[in-house]
């Protein structure tokens, strides 16, 4: 099994890399952070008996992705699985952020994901099933004031996953949208969870469990995976209420959380 992971040097990327390594899959890891890539490559190779290849790449740049694809083609690699993990989340009010930062959310979370997904689907292994993951978020379930663009970008991925799943079914492509709540991947993320108090901890998903179940679901059938019973219940009831009410409630909650927590600390954090 050959697996490509984008955003592989971030917290979720590393956990998924470990999970795949443990299953004996060979890995092609990419991220914009070249040094981080080398570290996770070392770590996976030392833990598991698998081949790990890395290539640093800025997925928001056509040239950079073209180069990545050229190196894949020169190695003649064919893939069985793509885990789209790379993504950014700039927290905070719409007007408090620069226009560029906001557009960058879409450039990476959506445009870049499309670019690499299209390229990899065309390089899937002939005659075998292909597994395609999009990392959406619990934030995709509702419109989210103070994370408006981010939540919308994650909604895009959710809808994309659901639609592609049908469209590519007879090409034997399994598509999964992963919609986690909080993940304690970085010190900032841990601080953020702590700042949200009870609800922060309650909606946080254990990273190692999410990683394992994500690959299990992806291989079994695809679909939408919302980790955590509480998150599923909240999502269910959220759907019964008018979207405007949910948005208003979320706005109140985030405002309170932000009083304890400088959102600047979260900027450009990998999901």
């Amino acid at each position: 099994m050959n697996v490509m992971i984008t955003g592989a040097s971030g917290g979720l990327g590393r956990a998924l890399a470990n999970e795949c390594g443990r299953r004996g899959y060979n890995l092609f890891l990419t991220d914009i952070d070249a040094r981080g890539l080398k570290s996770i490559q070392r770590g996976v190779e030392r833990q598991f008996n698998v081949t790990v290849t890395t290539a640093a790449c800025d997925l928001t740049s056509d040239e950079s992705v073209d180069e990545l694809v050229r190196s894949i083609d020169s190695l003649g690699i064919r893939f069985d699985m793509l885990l789209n993990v790379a993504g950014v989340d700039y927290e905070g009010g719409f007007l408090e952020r620069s226009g560029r930062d906001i557009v960058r959310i879409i450039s990476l979370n959506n445009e870049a994901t499309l670019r690499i997904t299209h390229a990899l689907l065309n390089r899937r292994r002939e005659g075998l099933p292909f597994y395609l993951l999009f990392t959406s978020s619990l934030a995709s379930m509702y419109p989210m004031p103070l994370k408006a663009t981010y939540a919308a970008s994650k909604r895009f991925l959710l809808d994309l996953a659901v639609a592609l799943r049908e469209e590519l079914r007879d090409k034997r492509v399994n598509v999964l949208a992963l919609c986690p709540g909080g993940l304690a991947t970085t010190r900032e993320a841990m601080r953020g969870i702590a700042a949200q108090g009870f609800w922060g901890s309650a909606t946080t998903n254990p990273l190692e469990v999410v990683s394992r179940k994500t690959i299990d679901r992806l291989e079994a059938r695809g679909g939408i995976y919302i980790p955590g019973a509480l998150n599923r219940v909240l999502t269910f009831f959220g759907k019964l209420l008018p979207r405007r009410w949910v948005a208003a409630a979320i706005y109140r909650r985030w405002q309170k959380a932000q009083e304890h927590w400088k959102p600047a600390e979260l900027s450009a954090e990998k999901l």
Partner: protein
Amino acid sequence: MKYAVITGASSGIGLAASVELAQKGYAVIGVGRDEARCEQAALQIRAAAPDANIRFLCADLMQQREVARVAHEITEILLQEHEGKLDALINNAGCVRSWYTTTEEGYEQQFALNHLAGFLLTWFLLSQLGRAGGRVLMTGSESHKQFRMRWHDVMFSRGYNPLAAYKQSKLSNILFARGLNDRYQKDGVRAYVVDPGLVCTEIGCKNTGGLVNWIWNMRKKHGAQPEVPAGTYGYLCETEPAPEELYYYRCKPNRYSKQVTRENADRLFALSERLCGVEYPSAIVTEKEKTI
């Protein structure tokens, strides 16, 4: 003047041990992760020991490249000031994590900091320790008892449990000390583990959340002040001839787990060498002998 390196010297037990050794006239090289906290700690040490020779180096010891960098800086200092000799290395930096979290290498953070960081730092400083007939101290914990190594999954990627991961890292400390003694006692280097008892520090409230935080806040109230275990570090560094046992609580040998066997120690050595990408030599060779 003797030289000591103490990791996690910016607060808690490591800070108290630094004061203890500074008062005993050691030159202390402290390692912490946060510059401001290190400066603050240096002030505190100087207040308690006015002519202390104390300096701090900053490194996030969870990351292996940072361990390598700080080891290099320490080596330079020792070479310039102390003929490349290190009298005591205290691997004390430690953490607790409520959730499964990984380092840059993708290693579970408690295992990476509480065990691997010390394993790798000791490897880098082995010949310096050899030259001085130095001692290596780990800060262990009573909680290592009634626990076995999870050899099939030391990183807890299945069924993570904060306390279990912590216990395993503390059992690893003793296995590591045992492995060092098995290999290098003949070369004059001795390793010990200090059981500090329950100590009132902030360890359970840093980068933790929810339950762990709450439980630790209740528990730490019953703990001793960090100065209490500090004496044991002084005792183990200073006493001649070198104390014979492996595991000490308040300057006295204490019982430790039956899991601490030569076989388990060797197994952990092999695993840690692989995870750190290094190999411990069969004997300590100092450069002088090498050139002969």
